[in-house]
């Protein structure tokens, strides 16, 4: 790998990393604004215009608070918990395709950290690791409530991972590729997977709510039963990391949803816009501007799902724990298996008939 390529990759990865952090930061602001709107009040509006500097103020407060470690806690694991939560949350952004390619002096630079032929498996692996941050932190706190929160988080994540993986299988059967870039490219021309996989989409989004520990599945931090859940003993920036990791997870899973089901950077009339731009501005500038529009569309879709997370949070009450487990194991998993069978039958029998009829 020559130096230029290495530098380009480094810049892409740092840009993706920074963007993820900034979006997660402003999600905290957006969440309070949405909460305010839904509950008919203003939300944060003191720091900066419309409260836009509120996340910075919060970060400053978190950093300057006393960094307290309980006397009987396992010190190293207590620190490792939030670090692991942040690490696993940020890892997944590396393989998400944010747009098609930039053309700089004849070189095609993909707007994606790493293009890998196992992209979706990588994301799934990182999601599977997300539970360690919570488990390690909850256990190391040496507090029964923290431990119970950690155990709940672990069992919930494991249960919903199964249904999530099964709903992904249906997508993989249709695209016959595990690369996220390839899956997006196949959805070109309003060929979005949501039209073929509505059931799979509903299963996937339910499971991603559970994986992010968001309402209505936020049992691990259920205040009425568990004080504060797995982060009862945490304060200052360590608590900040836990809360921040949740927002990063939200953005990443929204991005994954828009990549898998809503065509990523594809939008209707894309070819027409591309042709017009290339005709007007030349193959280099026109191509780059078309890519930027696609990226903006991608972020629009992803941010809509971030909003959807918040919308649900202030609308639906929390599940009871046995309801959560029954939903995961007895409803979502059989539904996902049913979805796989239907998809398999459609790919094998229906698709040849329709293609023959269309031709």
């Amino acid at each position, binding site marked *: 790998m020559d130096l230029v390529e290495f530098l380009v990759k480094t810049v892409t990865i740092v840009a993706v990393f920074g963007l993820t952090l900034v979006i997660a930061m402003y999600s905290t602001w957006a969440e309070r604004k949405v909460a305010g709107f839904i509950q008919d009040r203003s939300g944060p509006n003191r720091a900066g215009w419309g409260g836009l500097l509120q996340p910075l103020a919060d970060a400053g407060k978190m950093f300057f608070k006393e960094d307290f470690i309980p006397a009987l806690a*396992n010190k190293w*694991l207590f620190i490792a918990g939030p670090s692991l939560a942040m690490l696993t949350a940020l890892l997944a952004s590396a393989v998400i395709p944010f747009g098609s390619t930039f053309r700089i002096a004849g070189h095609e630079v993909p707007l994606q950290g790493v293009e*890998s*032929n*196992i992209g979706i*498996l*990588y994301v*799934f*692996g990182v*999601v*599977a*690791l997300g*539970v*360690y941050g919570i*488990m*390690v932190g909850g*256990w190391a706190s040496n507090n029964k409530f923290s*431990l119970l929160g*950690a*155990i709940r988080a*672990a*069992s919930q*994540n*494991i249960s919903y*991972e199964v249904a999530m993986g099964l709903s992904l299988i249906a997508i993989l059967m249709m695209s016959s590729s*595990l690369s996220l870039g390839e899956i997006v490219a196949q959805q070109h021309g309003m060929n979005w997977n949501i039209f073929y996989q509505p059931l799979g989409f509903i299963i996937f989004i339910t499971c991603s709510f559970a994986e992010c520990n968001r309402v209505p599945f936020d049992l691990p931090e259920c205040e009425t039963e568990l004080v504060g859940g797995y982060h009862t003993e945490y304060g200052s920036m360590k608590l900040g990391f836990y809360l921040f990791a949740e927002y990063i997870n939200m953005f990443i899973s929204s991005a994954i949803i828009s990549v898998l089901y809503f065509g990523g950077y594809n939008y209707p009339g894309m070819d027409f816009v591309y042709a017009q731009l290339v005709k007007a501005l030349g193959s280099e500038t026109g191509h780059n501007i078309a890519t930027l529009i696609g990226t903006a569309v991608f972020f629009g879709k992803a941010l809509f799902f971030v909003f959807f997370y918040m919308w649900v949070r202030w609308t639906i009450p929390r599940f009871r724990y046995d309801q959560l487990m029954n939903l995961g194991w007895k409803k979502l998993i059989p539904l996902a298996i049913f979805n796989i069978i239907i998809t398999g039958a459609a790919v094998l029998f229906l698709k040849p008939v329709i293609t023959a009829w269309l031709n």
Partner: protein
Amino acid sequence: MNSAVSFFYFLSFLTILSAVMVVVSRNPIHSVLYLILTFFTLSGHYILLNAQFLAAVNIIVYAGAIMVLFLFVIMFLNMKQDQEESKTNLTKIAATIVGGTVFVILFGAYRKTAIEPFNPQTYDSQIGMIESLGHMLFRDYLLPFELASILLLVAMVGAVLLGKREIGERHF
């Protein structure tokens, strides 16, 4: 020494170190965490061998699911370091003998194996990629693959039967 070889040595050192730490650690939670680290470094070895699918599956299955259950159980056991009554001298001697025997067997097997020489010109570097792995599994090894899936299905049915509540049994 090129970068791949030096990276291999670094990774091997890390693997062996974390594997030793699994055995040496007094605290069972630390042991489990070191075991997870061992799985990660093993996945690094798979990536060095260009077997990305195996690396990802190793992480998902072992680090992501099985080790979470290990951690789960150990957290509930609440083991204290002074409650080590099970480690008598007899078990220590038995463990040493068993471990030594396994080591001798593995070492003997290692000395007997002859690694096939390969030709760098004709070697297919894409052999560990998921596409070729899928072709291999579903064409050449279809029957063993299906038999393994039936085995897993049987195990799953068994687990469901064990976990099922008997009629009339109290639950809360």
